[in-house]
Every structure is written in C-alpha cells, then in structure tokens.
C-alpha cells in the first residue's frame, strides 16, 4: 500500500501536508514552552517534540536543528523546574512521556529528570505485574514495550488478548454500534498486538473477531461525524493490520488532508453549537495524531515505536 503511495502524487500530497503540519508547530504560543505549565503547556511541549520528530524522520531522515533546539529547551526547563514538571508528567499519558524520553536521547539532550521518571514508571509496572494474575491491559502493555525499547524493562513478550470473560460474544449489530471508548479499546489492542505496527498481528482473525472488517466503517463514520482524532487513530490501526486495502487508506488520508487548514493545522470545522467566527483552541494532540498517521502511511519504513528504540 504505502510503497504504491510513495510512487505517486498521493505521496507528494502527503509529504506536502506533513511539511505544512510541521510548520504549524512553530506558530504562535505553541513555541513558548514556559508560558503556562499549570495547564497543558508542558504536555504540549512534549507533543510538539514527538510531532517534530515524526516529521523530521519522514521528511528529512534525520533530526533537524529545530528539534535539537526544542529538545534543549525542554531539558533545560525540566532541570530548572523539576518539582513542577514532575507534577505535570504525572498527568501525562505515560507512553507520551516514554517516547519523549527516547527522542531526547536520540538528539543528545538526555534528561535526567525524564529518565528517572521513566525508571519509576518501569518499577511501578514491574511491581504491578508481579501482583497481577490477569492479562495486561493494552495501554499498559504499550508503555511496557516502549520502556523496553529504552532499556528500562525486560521484553514483556507478546501481547495476549483476553477473550470476554462472561456471556456469549456480542452480536454483529452490537459490535458495529460500539461507542467511541470501546472502539478505542480495539485500537489499543491492535496497537499492542502489532507493537505499534512493528510486527504483524499474530493470527488476527480469531483474536480480533469482526473488528478488522468494521474498522473501515468506523473510520468513515468518524470522519463523517467530525471526529478527526478517532478517524486518524482508526486509519493507523488499519495500517498496522495486514492486507490493508489501498482504497481504504486513500479514503482515510484524504479525510485528514481535507481537514488541514491553510496554516497547516489539522482541525474539524467548529461545531454547530459554537458561535460563528469563534475558532476553537488549537489542539496539538490532534496535530500529533494526524501527523503520526500520515507519516506512517507515507513511509512504510517508519514506525514511531521503532524510531526511538535504543
């Protein structure tokens, strides 16, 4: 799929889009890391770091001067404001923190604060694993895989998807009508089974049931209902499964490209309930998700998880 894309004008469109999305990361307040650490400021700084890394890897094949500069600023802020930053990190998605830690290493801006934080996450997970008799949940497993990539944990082995414990499996209609959190759980499972697209899903048919066949429907429905984050995440999950249909991939990338504004931001039109003329607050998380998905569609050799491995 992606090698075909690489050859054509679709690849050129994706490349242009990623470049514009990267440029947007530097605009306005997003570049001012120290402005507001109480809210999402520092988390956004980490998201910008990851997004920049992704763009640099697929556009340049190396780390740019901009990401070096950004990484140095992040390391400096963490060193100077450790207590405050740790409180922010505690509210962040663990996988984001671990990936950021790996990127800082890769650009020679290793942060002792972040390394220590990751070690503590690893210790906590190790203890929890010793006490636990149930299978690991997918998001936790993904964090373990990333920590293993950085050498903080031993190889957790393959992900084991637990079948539903009680009752018969849902009927097809119930499965199709899954709500967003349930769909997100399926996406997490696919990410865990494939280690974020780094390896083929082991025998995905029986393991995932109807989910692979429902993904294209959920993706189109997400884009039709202006759920850009969910649609982009579903597209990435489709990419991680084998035999992805190029038509489906084009359907998804077309939707993401269609939601890119002239300044490079990926965003849906304002909701109907919002007053005319009021622009919603830019979401760096949405920008990161869209760039991540487009990058992995564009470049078959790039997988975020693989790119930060030591």
């Amino acid at each position, binding site marked *: 799929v992606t090698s075909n894309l690489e050859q054509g004008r679709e690849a050129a469109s994706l490349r242009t889009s990623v470049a514009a999305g990267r440029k947007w990361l530097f605009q306005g307040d997003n570049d001012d890391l120290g402005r507001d650490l109480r809210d999402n400021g520092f988390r956004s700084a980490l998201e910008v770091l990851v997004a920049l890394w992704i763009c640099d890897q697929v556009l340049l094949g190396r780390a740019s001067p901009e990401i070096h500069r950004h990484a140095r600023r992040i390391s400096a802020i963490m060193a100077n404001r450790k207590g405050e930053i740790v409180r922010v990190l505690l509210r962040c998605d663990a996988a984001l923190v671990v990936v950021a830690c790996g990127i800082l290493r890769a650009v020679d801006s290793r942060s002792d604060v972040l390394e220590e934080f990751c070690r503590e996450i690893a210790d906590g997970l190790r203890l929890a694993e010793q006490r636990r008799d149930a299978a690991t949940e997918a998001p936790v497993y993904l964090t373990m895989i990333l920590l293993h990539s950085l050498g903080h944990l031993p190889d957790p082995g393959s992900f084991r998807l637990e079948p539903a414990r009680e009752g018969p499996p849902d009927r097809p209609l119930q499965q199709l009508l899954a709500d967003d959190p349930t769909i997100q759980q399926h996406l997490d499972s696919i990410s865990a089974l494939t280690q974020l697209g780094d390896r083929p899903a082991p025998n995905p048919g029986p393991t995932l049931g109807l989910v692979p*066949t429902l993904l294209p429907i959920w993706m189109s*429905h997400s884009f039709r209902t202006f759920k850009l984050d969910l649609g982009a995440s579903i597209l990435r999950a489709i990419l991680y499964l084998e035999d992805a249909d190029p038509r489906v991939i084009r359907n998804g990338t077309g939707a993401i490209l269609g939601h890119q504004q002239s300044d490079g931001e990926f965003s849906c039109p304002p909701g109907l309930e919002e007053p005319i003329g009021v622009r919603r607050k830019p979401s760096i998380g949405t920008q990161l998700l869209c760039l991540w998905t487009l990058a992995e569609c564009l470049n078959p050799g790039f997988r975020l998880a693989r790119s930060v491995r030591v």
Partner: protein
Amino acid sequence: MTSLLQSGDRALDWVAGNLAAFDPLGGPVSQPSEFRIIALGELALLSRTLHRHRPNDHRLERCFSLLAATWERREYTDWLLHRPFLLPVYLATWAALRDEQGRQPNVHAAIQAVLADGYPILSEQWPSQRLELRYRLDALGIPHHLPSYRRLYMETALSKPLPTRLISDSDSYCITHAIFYLMDPFFPHEDVIPRSHIRRIRDIVGELLGLSILEGNLDLVIELLICCHYLRWLPRHLVDAGVETVLEAQLPNGRIPPLRESASGDNAVSAQRPDTFSSDFHPTLLWAETSLLLSEWDVPS
C-alpha cells in the same frame, strides 16, 4: 429464518392494507397523482418479484388487480404524454403485468410516442437513470438508441472509486440502483462490470451498509441488503446486523419507517407516529421483497 419470513409477511400485510394509497387515480381530482404513479411503479416491482415465489398469494392478486385496473384508465396512460420523465415507472409497471399476468396493456402507443419524441433519452439525467431506462426498454424488447451498458455503467458512480466517507445518500441510491439494473437475477448483465471492479464494489456496498446501519437509514439498509443478494455476496456479520436493525424498527402493523427513530432513544415515538404513507411505503415494500430473498440465504433472525 421464521421470524424473517414473518416480518416480510407483516410488511406485505401493511402493503395490502394500504392499496388505496397506491392508486394514482384515487384522489379527489381526475388528474393522476405523480407521487402515486411512482408508488404504483414500486408496487409493480414488488409484485413481480414476489409473485414468482408466491404465485397464489391473495394479497399479490389484489396488487395485480389494482395495477391492471389502473392501466385501463385513460387518465393514467395519457398522463405519460405529459410527464415523459415517468417513462421508466410506466415500463416497470407494464413489465410486471406482462410477465406475471400475461396481459398486453394498451399503453404501447403512448410509450412509442414518448420514445419517438425523444424526451426521455435526450433530457439531462443521472447516469443511473439512463441505465434504468435502457434496462427497462430492453426487458420489454423495445428498440432504442441508448449507449451500451458498458458505456452507461462507466458513467455511473458505481464504476468509480468514490471515497466512502463522502458518499451522500443520493449517491448511495445511484449506486444501489445501478446494481439493481446490472445484476438483476431475472435480467442480468454481469459481463458489463469488469471483474476487477467487483471486489471494490462489494467492499463499498459493505461499508455503505455499515454506515447506513450506524446512521439509522433503514431505507438504504434494505436497498444495500438487496445489493448483497444481487452481488451474490454474503458479508454475514453486516447482513445479520442489517436484518436485526430492520426487525427492531418494524412496527407491529408491519410498517417500516425510513429512519430508525429509536436511534434518538425513544422507541415509543415510532409506535405512536401516525402512518405516513409517503415516507414509509418504500422501505416497507422493499422489506417484503428483501426478507424473502434473504430467507433463501438462511440468514438467522
């Protein structure tokens, strides 16, 4: 399967109980109702299909009686001369009477006059409408100068890899109807669609079926279920989900609303809503046919 057949039977009961509403000349004025002419055409299509499976069903006999009686009325046949764009509907009705009742209706002259005038062929139409016109003329052996099926197919949305997320309801109906005309088991033109297109068409039909279920568009759900049957393709989970969606939405009197009102969270709304023939006749007619087709597949219900 039993409840699927029972459900279709209830839908046919509703149709038979509302035949008066299909009569184009049943209104207070002598001028035929265009809407009812179209509804009568849909009734003809259903009667034709069901009659082959249920030749002795008294409800279908009543449908054919209405069709035949209407064809005898000058007000009805002459109306075609004033509204030539209705030609495919008249052709469908004629075909049902000819094929299932052995009748030779007297409207042939009006049809020839409309064709000689050229309006139905020369006027601007959606590609799927031109495909329908050719399909209906060919089914009756009426000569014409329309392009080949392959050429007409290549103009339709069905032949193109449309992004599923953007396909509107209107485009969805163009797709389902093109499948009806090209893959009708009674009058198939399977060689028209390149083999390499078939998989894509099936995938798009499957995705549209899933989207229609999610969006509660029962009318499209039923049309797409028929498409699966015509494409000889059984995406079991989606067909099961579609059937369950329709069965859940069907009202006790057999009527199928076009949209799943329970999607808004209130099942009681549908039950209390007064019969709205104009919106409900189409999905109900279609379901009477579809349930029978699906029961041949042994789809559980």
